[in-house]
C-alpha cells in the first residue's frame, strides 16, 4: 500500500493532473475575486460555476471508473449515489433557509408547509447540523451501495445482469423521489437555497470557495482511487476484471474486493453530488433518471476506461461539448451528437481518448526502441 501512496504522487501523469487541479483551485478564484472585471485574465463568476459543475461530473466519472475500469462492474446506477449525496446536502441547505421561506416557517421547508405537514419527518432530523449532513453525504450512498453490492456480489450477479439491476435501482429511486409523500419535495425537489454555513450562496466569495473545494475534492477522489488501484488491492481488482473465476479460484474473496470498491466509489459519487447541489442551486428526482447514469458511463468511455485521468477528462470534454451545443442554434441536434459519440467511442475508440493516446505512445516507443536496437545487432 505504501508504495502505492508514493507512486500515486511520483507518477508523472498524476503529478501533472494534481498540479493543474490545485493551480486551478487557487488561480481561478483569485482571478475572479482579485482582478477587475474588465481585465483580460478575469474569469467571470458564471464560468467558474460552470467549471465547478464539470469538476463534480469529473468526480462522478472517476468514481465510476474505479468500479468499471478497474473492477469490471458496469454500474448504470451511479447517478443514484450522486443524487443521494446531493439530496443529503440539499436537506442541509433547506434547513438553513429557516424562516426566510415563502411560508416563513422556521422548522418546516416550504413544500412541507404546502403539503400541510405538521412536523419534521424523522429522516430530516439532524440535517440542520453541517457535520451530520456531511456525514450523511458519505454514509447514505455508501450504505445503499454496501447493501446492494452485498446482495448482488454475494450471489454472483455479474456483467449485463448487474448493469440492468443497477439501472432498475436508480429507476426505483426515481419513482420514489417523484412522490410528494416521500418528504423530499416531490418532482420540484429541493431548491431556493440561501446560504451554506452562514455564507450567502450567491456571493462570489462563497462560489469561489465552493469551486476551490470541488477542485480539491476531485484531487482527493483521484488520489484515493489512484492509491487503491496501484496497490495490491488494485491488482486484485484488475485480476477480477480480467478473469473473475480464476481470481476466485486462486483464493481471493472476489465479492469482498468488489464490495469495497463499489462502496468507496459510491461515497465519492455522493461527495460529488453534495458539491454539485450548492453550485447549481437545485436537486430534483430527474438526477435519478437512468439516462443520467448512462451518460456518466459515456464520459468514462470517451476519456478512456481504466485510466482515472481519462475518466475525468472525458467528463470535461463531453460536458464542454454539451454546453457548447445546447446553448447555440444546434441545440436540437445535441442528442444526435451524444448518440453519435456513444457509437463512435465504442466502435472506434474502445480505449477512449487517453487510453488510445497511451497505446499510440507505447507503440511508438517500442518501434523506436526496435529501430535503435536493430542496427546495433548488426
Amino acid at each position: 500500500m505504501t508504495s502505492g501512496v508514493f507512486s500515486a504522487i511520483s507518477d508523472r501523469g498524476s503529478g501533472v493532473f494534481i498540479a493543474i487541479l490545485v493551480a486551478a483551485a487557487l488561480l481561478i478564484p483569485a482571478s475572479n475575486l482579485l482582478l477587475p472585471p474588465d481585465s483580460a485574465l478575469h474569469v467571470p463568476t458564471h464560468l467558474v460555476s460552470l467549471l465547478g459543475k464539470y469538476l463534480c461530473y469529473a468526480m462522478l466519472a472517476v468514481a465510476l471508473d474505479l468500479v468499471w475500469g478497474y473492477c469490471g462492474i458496469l454500474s448504470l446506477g451511479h447517478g443514484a449515489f450522486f443524487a443521494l449525496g446531493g439530496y443529503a446536502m440539499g436537506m442541509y441547505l433547506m434547513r438553513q433557509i429557516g424562516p426566510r421561506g415563502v411560508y416563513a416557517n422556521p422548522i418546516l421547508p416550504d413544500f412541507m408547509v404546502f403539503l400541510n405537514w405538521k412536523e419534521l419527518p424523522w429522516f430530516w432530523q439532524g440535517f440542520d447540523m453541517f457535520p451530520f449532513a456531511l456525514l450523511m453525504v458519505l454514509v447514505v450512498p455508501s450504505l445503499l451501495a454496501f447493501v446492494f453490492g452485498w446482495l448482488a456480489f454475494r450471489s454472483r450477479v455479474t456483467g449485463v445482469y448487474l448493469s440492468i439491476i443497477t439501472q432498475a435501482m436508480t429507476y426505483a429511486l426515481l419513482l420514489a423521489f417523484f412522490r410528494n409523500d416521500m418528504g423530499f419535495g416531490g418532482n420540484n425537489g429541493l431548491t431556493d437555497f440561501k446560504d451554506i454555513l452562514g455564507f450567502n450562496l450567491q456571493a462570489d466569495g462563497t462560489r469561489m470557495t465552493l469551486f476551490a473545494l470541488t477542485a480539491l475534492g476531485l484531487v482527493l477522489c483521484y488520489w484515493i482511487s489512484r492509491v487503491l488501484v496501484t496497490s495490491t488491492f488494485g491488482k486484485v481488482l484488475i485480476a477480477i476484471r480480467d478473469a473473475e473465476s480464476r481470481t476466485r479460484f486462486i483464493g481471493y474473496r472476489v465479492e469482498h474486493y468488489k464490495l469495497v470498491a463499489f462502496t468507496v466509489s459510491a461515497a465519492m459519487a455522493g461527495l460529488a453530488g453534495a458539491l454539485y447541489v450548492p453550485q447549481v442551486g437545485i436537486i430534483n428526482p430527474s438526477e435519478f433518471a437512468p439516462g443520467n447514469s448512462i451518460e456518466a458511463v459515456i464520459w468514462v468511455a470517451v476519456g478512456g476506461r481504466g485510466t482515472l485521468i481519462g475518466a475525468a477528462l472525458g467528463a470535461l470534454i463531453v460536458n464542454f461539448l454539451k454546453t457548447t451545443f445546447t446553448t447555440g442554434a444546434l441545440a436540437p441536434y445535441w442528442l444526435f451528437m451524444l448518440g453519435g459519440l456513444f457509437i463512435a467511442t465504442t466502435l472506434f475508440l474502445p480505449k477512449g481518448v487517453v487510453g488510445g493516446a497511451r497505446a499510440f505512445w507505447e507503440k511508438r516507443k517500442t518501434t523506436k526502441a526496435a529501430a535503435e536496437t536493430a542496427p546495433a545487432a548488426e
Partner: protein
Amino acid sequence: MTRFLRALLVVGLCLGALPGLAQDAFETGLQRLAQDSFGETTTAISEIATSGAPNAALVIEALADGRLFFTADKQIYVKKPTGEFIDARTGAALAAEPTGGSAVRLNNRVRNVVQGALGNLGILSSDPVKRKEAALAVLRSKDATALPALETAIKQEKDRAILRTLETARAAIFVTKPDASDADRLAAIGALREVGNQDALATLRGLPTSVSAPVAEAAKAAIGGIESRLALWEVVQTAWYGLSLGSVLLLAAIGLAITFGVMGVINMAHGEMVMIGAYTTFVVQEVIRARFPGLFDYSLVFALPLAFLTAGLVGLIIERTVIRFLYGRPLETLLATWGVSLILQQAVRTYFGPTNQAVGAPAFMSGLIEVGGLSITLGRLWIIVFAFLAFLALLGALRYTSFGLQIRAVTQNRRMAANMGIRTNYIDALTFALGSGIAGVAGVALSQIDNVSPNLGQSYIIDSFMVVVFGGVGNLWGTLVSALSLGIANKILEPFAGAVLGKILILVGLILFVQKKPRGLFPQKGRGVEA
C-alpha cells in the same frame, strides 16, 4: 337538438307496429293536451310518457320546447325545428300549417313534470343505447314517478342486460320508497341480491331506517352476500387487469427476448423499435384518413406488416453498421445501442415534433363488454389476444421453420453451425431484424393504449429488461411466464401500495430475486452457458 333528431329518427323507424292498448293512453293524453289547462296537461304528460307509444318522445320533446300546437278542432301537431309540421297522432307530415293553431302552454310546474317525463321516457326509446342510459338514470334517481313507465318498459324489453338494469331500477325504487309494503320490499331486496353489483349494494345501504325487522334482516343478509360476491369478482377483475398489463409487457419484451436472450445483445434501442412501430401506425392512419377514409377500420391491418418491415429494416441497418462489430462484448453493445436510441428518438422528434400524435382506434376495438362483475374493454382484450398470437407465431417460427432452426443452431454453437454451412453473419443480421420487427409490431398494439410520442420506447425499456431478466435469458416460455406474473403482481400490489409504490416494490423484489436466481426463473442449462 341532436337528442331531438335522434328521437325523431327513432319515431320514424318504428312507425310500423303500434300496440293498440298503448295507443289508447296516448290518444287520451293528446286530447287532454288540447284542453289548454295546466292541470290537464300535467296528467296528459304522464299518460303519454307511460303509454309506450312511438310518438310519445316526439310529443313530449316538442312540448318541452314549446313546439307543440293544437287547433280548435282538437288537432295536435308538432312544428319541427326545421320548420316542417307533422301530425302528433300519426307522425305524418302536413302539407301546410293548420289554421288557428296555438302552442300548448307551459308553466314551471308543467316544465318540471316534462323534464321528469323526458328522463323516464328514454327507457321506452327504441334506441338501445338511449334506453340503457335512461335505465341507469332511473336507477340513480330512484324516482318513484318513473314506476309506470318502468313497468311498461320491463314488459317489452328484449335486451337482457337492459332488462336487468330496469329490474334493478324497479327494485331500487321499491326499496327506497317510503310507503312500499314489506312484501314489495322483500321482493325488491331479493331482486337486488340477485343483481349483486355496486349499484345494488349502494341502494341496499340506502334503505330507510324505519323499515320492519324482517326487511332489515333480509337487507343485511343481502348486503353481506353481495359484498362477498363483489370481493370475488374483484379478484377476477384484478387478475384480468394483471393479464392485460402482462400481455403489454409480453409484447414489449418479446422482441428483446430474441435480441438479448438469443443473441446476447443488449439492445437499449429496443424501445425505439417499439416507437417506430407506433409511428408507422400513425403514418398509415394519416394516409388512410387523407386518401381512403373508408378503410380506416382496417388501418391496423395495413400497419402491422408495415411496422414489422420498417422496424425490421431499421434493426437490420443497426446490426450491419454497429452491432456486428461488437458481438461478444455485451457491455459495449449496451453503450452503442443507447447511442442509437438517442439518435432515433431525436430523429423522430425532429421529424414528427415532440408532442403526442393522435392514433385512432378502429370500431371493433372500442367499447366495453361486461361478463358478470367483470368489465372488459375491447381494446385491451384485443391486445391480449394479439400478444398471445405474436408469442405463438414467434415460437412457431423458431421451432418449425428452417430459419428458426438456423437461429437455434447459431445460438447453441456458433462455430459448429458455421462448419455445417450456416452463414452465421447472415443469421445474426436476420435474427436482429426479426427481434426489431416484432418490437415494431408491439408498437402497433401499444399505439392503441399509450401516447405515441418520441418517449414511448423509453417508458417500456426498463420493464422489458425486467421481464427478460426475470424470465431467464434465452427462453421464450420464461418470458411469457415472467411477463404475466409481473403484470399480475403489479396489479395486486396497486390497491395497497398505489401505482408508483407498487412498481417500486416490484423493482426491489426483482433486485432481490436476481440475488437468488441470477439467471432468471428458467435458466439456460448446458454447455452454451457462460461459466
